[in-house]
């Protein structure tokens, strides 16, 4: 099967799973921004995305997307290290035009997964998972809240400066991953040429900045709200 045993096939899987994750991020960021304008609207989305079969199914698809992307990332990275060989250059220089992110996609991905773990224990585990376990109330700080009360979770966690700082680091790593990832995915599919390459790179930068700013905006907004 060429998607498994050819380099371009493997890259195509990486690219499509990456674009799929980007679409998810777009959705997630828009949903978060809703919380700034109306916590009721946000909670309506949260209860809609609770323990319903369609939300669980979507979560499974999403998890599969992540898994495929990560498994292929590990596999590609190992193959590429082997292709590089065990002898390293004594002098290494990164040429101009070569983005730092492009050479550190795996590390950036690992940082993203690491924080994803934190995010999961804070939100998903106490929300969708709690609901799936049949709980109608979960402990949050000193009180009990409904697992569908997403706004309460946001208010609670984003009032803590350390949590806020950690999330901001996460967004920065994500930003770097996306500035390269987006145009790289398009290039891998082959939708690029001398003119469009520059355009896709510009679009990548704008797009990554917008997504990460949206996440950061919500995080900072709720922190400021908690101290003011």
């Amino acid at each position, binding site marked *: 099967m060429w998607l498994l045993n*050819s*380099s*371009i096939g493997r890259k195509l899987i990486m690219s499509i799973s990456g674009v799929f994750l980007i679409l998810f991020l777009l959705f997630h960021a828009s949903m978060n921004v809703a919380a700034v304008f109306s916590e009721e609207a946000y909670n309506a989305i949260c209860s809609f995305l609770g323990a319903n079969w369609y939300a669980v199914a979507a979560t499974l698809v999403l998890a599969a997307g992540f898994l495929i992307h990560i498994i292929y990332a590990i596999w590609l990275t190992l193959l*590429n290290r082997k292709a590089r060989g065990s002898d*390293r250059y004594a*002098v290494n220089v990164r*040429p101009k035009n070569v983005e730092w992110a492009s050479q550190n996609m795996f590390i950036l991905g690992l940082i993203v997964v690491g924080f994803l773990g934190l995010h999961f224990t804070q939100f998903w585990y106490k929300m969708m998972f709690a609901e799936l376990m049949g709980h109608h109330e979960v402990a949050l700080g000193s009180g009990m809240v409904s697992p569908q009360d997403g706004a309460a979770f946001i208010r609670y966690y984003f009032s803590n400066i350390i949590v806020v700082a950690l999330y901001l680091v996460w967004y920065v790593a994500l930003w770097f991953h996306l500035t390269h990832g987006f145009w790289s995915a398009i290039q891998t599919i082959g939708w690029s040429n001398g003119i469009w390459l520059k355009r896709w790179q510009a679009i990548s930068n704008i797009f990554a900045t917008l997504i990460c700013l949206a996440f950061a905006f919500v995080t900072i907004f709720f922190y400021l709200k908690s101290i003011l």
Partner: protein
Amino acid sequence: MDKNINITLKVWRQKGPKEKGAFETYKLNNVSQGSSFLEMLDVLNEQLVNEGKEPVAFDHDCREGICGMCSLYINGHPHGPDSAVTTCQLHMRKFDDGATITVEPWRSAGFPVIRDLMVDRYAYDKIIQAGGFVSVNTGGIPDANAIPIPKKDADLAMDAAACIGCGACAAACKNGSAMLFVSAKVSQLALLPQGKIEAARRAKAMVAKMDELGFGNCTNTRSCEAECPKEVSISNIARLNREYIAAKLQD
């Protein structure tokens, strides 16, 4: 103005493919800045021979930037710090008096060291043999305008055909990927009517050979393009991806 400079060279010495290599340091005085990097190495070798030592083995042939034989990783760059030149076209005026210059062979699993700075680049020839040609007997030289070709396509094909197969792309790539080379060789034919007929078969065969030989998976870092002495563009890689994916979807 060019002058004569004194330099220190750190050169990779390795007796054979299986031996362990190491850097040797040599001092070279009164090197003319008007000489090329390879001429400077000739001077070094003369000095070594006079001292009764083994000369440094390095590849070279045309010494005018067209054959692709010269290589060398100089101060962290394939073909040295200048852009869009091969090592034979690199001048010593790019280096200052008192400079220390580190010279390494291409380091990539696909290009094993033969001796010192010489590496085995036969892998690229094998990829060409897998399909980098047009399999018709062309007979005599046809009239230039017998087959009309749009100027844009002709230019793109010529730019791709500028590739001299030197291997700097794979040597520069952190993934040891040969995609820039393969994409140039696929593009130069796929863009032209004579080459289009076999385009799908060619893309599949050359990529399969490239993978079989253990070259890496391209992650679009663009190091190859930045270091290519012929400035071959990664838009060729996008074309190869397109050709390959289309060919596989048709199967």
